[in-house]
């Protein structure tokens, strides 16, 4: 920047002098202190409005998408690894055909809990009982 333009480009002194006077009055009337305060205040407000990156809408959308994706993958993997349903084998030689309807109904909760039933059968050693003994046991369970 130079104030003493004196080369051949600016030989038209009147034109240049007039150009230099343009806007001088308006610029002098400008309250620069007020303008500077306005700039600083607006800049401060602008910076206060700027959110951290993790609070910006785009970041939130990405985070939500990642969470949904993770949940979907976890659900899918849980479905793949689910153990096969345990088949419940009801012994046919237990002589159930001789039980009354009430006795069979009393037996059903035990059938619905295969693991418990299996444990109970193992602990009780029922495999060694005769049909009559079994019937008496079942009758006692139903009462």
């Amino acid at each position, binding site marked *: 920047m130079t104030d003493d333009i004196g080369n051949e480009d600016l030989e038209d002194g009147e034109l240049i002098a007039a*150009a230099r006077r343009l806007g001088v009055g308006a610029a002098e009337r400008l309250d620069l202190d007020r303008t*500077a305060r306005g700039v600083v205040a*607006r800049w401060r407000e602008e910076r206060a409005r700027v959110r951290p990156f993790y609070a910006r809408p785009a970041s939130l959308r990405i985070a939500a998408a990642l969470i949904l994706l993770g949940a979907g993958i976890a659900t899918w993997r849980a479905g793949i690894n689910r153990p096969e349903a345990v088949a419940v084998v009801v012994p046919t030689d237990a002589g159930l055909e001789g039980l009354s309807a009430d006795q069979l109904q009393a037996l059903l909760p035990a059938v619905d809990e295969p693991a418990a039933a299996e444990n109970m059968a193992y602990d009780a050693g029922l495999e060694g009982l005769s049909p009559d003994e079994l019937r008496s046991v079942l009758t006692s369970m139903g009462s």
Partner: protein
Amino acid sequence: MPPPQSDAATDADLIARWQGGDEDAATALVTRHGRALARFLAASGAFESDLDDLVQDTFLRAFRSVAGFRGQCQFRTWLLTIGGNVLKDAGRRAARTKVVPLDEWLQAAGGTPHDDAVASETEGRLTRALRELPRLQREVFLLRAQQGMEYDDIASALGTTPGAARVHYHHAVKRLKEQLQ
């Protein structure tokens, strides 16, 4: 505590301090360059009543994009070219809001007839003639003739070559002389 501001502080110093959070440095930059910017904007066709807003908008836009300023030209030259963009955008907004063509907005921006009468005849005619110039010619002319910038500086700020800037200047002078005769 930041060091005290002084006239000796370079623009680069002030920019660095401002980027470090020193608001006094921003104030110093506005104080140092605001009036030259206002003269440039007024000569480019801005309403005097809009000058304060336009100067503020220009500094804010400059502060936002100061990371892109690498010292390729004077800070003031760079600032004035941003001012030209701000003025152009303001003209477009005004044209949209008031449904007035941009040319008419620029023609109306010179002030009241009273202002024209107060200004010297040559200045008044020059102001009107400047509005007839293409924007690039007008900006190069004002940066050179009004602000006293070097062609290298003008070219860097406007993204052109010094030779092209010189050509724009000569075209502008030729057309202005034709208009003023």
